């Protein structure tokens, strides 16, 4: 309750939340909002300047730039949010396990984390692209493989701090089992801090996936994904820099929305902790 009020009173958090809501709405209602079909080519109208019909002009194949940007939100959020949701759940599960389980299991989980953390996502993405073929599954697998260990480590760290406090001991004395301790006491207590990590995690996942798309990994040619659009706009770098400006700006804005909210929440939590 207290936390909700503090979030409502923080302008930074509210700006972040509003931007997130706006982006989600754009992604959901892309087909209503977009003035044109994002893949419809009009060779006669390539590199059109902005006008009433094409509010942001057209690209090198005469496709409506605005429509492509609007549909791009579907790819970034439609992949970024579920991926982070999976990572978040996996992190909670294995993180709690690796903090509360017997020493042997703890060691194994930590060892696996240490091994997986060492792989940079982009090398994994390249390797998986080479091995299972270029496509969205390869990039998603790469992000999951490269990131899960970070989430587990984070949760483990939070849980260890909580276990050092008095209430886990008190609930133990009151006869609370491990599962109940984790589900009813530990998870609710670490959730706010974890939300900070998840929010900034969405930002970095969105940047990462567009980065892969920019490198030509993940999406078939012509997909209206922001990173892929940037890649296609490279040819007209000096003549039409605005075609590079828009999609990159969209990626930055999306990342900004989640980072603004995450950082604001972090500040609120730290202030509460300090006082």
């Amino acid at each position, binding site marked *: 309750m207290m936390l909700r009020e503090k979030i409502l009173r923080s302008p930074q958090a509210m700006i972040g939340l509003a931007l997130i809501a706006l982006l989600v709405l754009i992604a959901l209602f892309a087909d209503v909002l977009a003035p044109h079909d994002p893949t419809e080519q009009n060779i006669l109208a390539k590199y059109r300047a902005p006008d009433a019909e094409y509010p942001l002009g057209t690209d090198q194949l005469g496709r409506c730039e605005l429509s492509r940007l609007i549909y791009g939100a579907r790819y970034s959020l439609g992949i970024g949010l579920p991926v982070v949701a999976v990572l978040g759940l996996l992190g909670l599960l294995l993180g709690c396990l690796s903090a509360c389980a017997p020493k042997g299991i703890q060691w194994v989980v930590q060892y696996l984390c240490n091994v997986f953390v060492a792989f940079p996502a982009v090398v994994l993405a390249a390797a998986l*692209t080479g091995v299972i073929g270029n496509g969205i599954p390869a990039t998603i697998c790469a992000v999951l493989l490269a990131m899960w260990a970070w989430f587990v480590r984070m949760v483990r*760290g939070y849980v260890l701090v909580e276990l050092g406090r008095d209430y886990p001991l008190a609930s133990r004395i009151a006869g609370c089992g491990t599962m109940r301790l984790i589900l009813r006491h530990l998870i609710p207590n670490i959730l706010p801090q974890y939300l900070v990590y998840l929010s900034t995690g969405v930002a970095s996942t969105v940047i990462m996936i567009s980065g892969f798309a*920019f490198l030509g990994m993940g999406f078939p040619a012509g997909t209206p994904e922001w990173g892929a659009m940037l890649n296609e706009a490279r040819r007209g770098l000096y003549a039409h820099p605005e075609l*590079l400006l828009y999609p990159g700006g969209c990626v*930055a804005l999306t990342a900004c929305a989640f980072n603004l909210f995450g950082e604001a929440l972090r500040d609120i939590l730290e202030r509460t902790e300090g006082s």
Partner: protein
Amino acid sequence: MARTALRKAGYLLLILLGVSLLSFALLQLSGRDPALAIALRSQGTSEENLARLREEMGLNGTMLEQYLKWLTGFLRGDFGYSIYSGRAVAADLLSVLPVTCALMGLAFLWILLLGTPMALYAAYRPGKLFDQVVRILNVLGICLPTFWSGYLLLVLFAVKIPLISVAPKPGLAGLLLPSFALAVPSMASYTRVFRASLLKQMHAEYCLIARTRGLSRKEILLRHAVRNAMPPVVTLLMQYVGYLFIGTVLVESVFSLNGLGSYLLGCALASDAAALAACLVLAAAVYAVFNLLGEFINRMLCPWMEKGGVLQ
């Protein structure tokens, strides 16, 4: 100290073993026959040619034998044969690594040289104008996709302010812009964490005591707080080795540099399993080694801290 060092080194070896196993397993997933791929390019696909190539490349025998053969080859510096370039992977890596290393090294310099003063001054006067500006710049900096800021710099310096040459040049001068684009997001998070860590120390009891003894805020910050604030920052810097790696690949593509990134992409699109496995192992090994290094630096900086900072 010596015993901990040995134990840590042993654990590192164990991690590297896991890394190599995982890379080898990934390589096996492809289901393509590398001998056939090479035969198609060079000697022809007759049965005896294929058999000879398989023998040469160690593709006969059980999975375990293959792994051991690959691993021993790897330890001797023989990373296999690249389908993508048609040369030995080791030779390829030697020719592309200098650019990538220079790029990452310069990015580290940018991070340290620009980020450190920003963090120090922001922590010296928290809540003041400079601090607020740095805070906003940090949030924005973390959000900048490297592949986008690279182009912004390129267009800016090529069209608006033709001060720095943007054409790929040999030497470090040509790497100034790319390394800056690479450094920005990491610099932002470095500054944020360093500032927060400094402030946490400044609120600690020993700093309050030093203040009551008449030391100025500046003296406390530079003499006492900095050192104690370092461990989380060192840990973070070592983690950037992995993070900058992702950025390098993107930045190399933006600025058309011939480094590890372009090699990696070429190998990915050519399904070059041998080269990809070598890149995986190398990248992970470098990362693991730097992290261990970070732990030792932290131990030396603050021996009084128990577990070498926040690495857990």
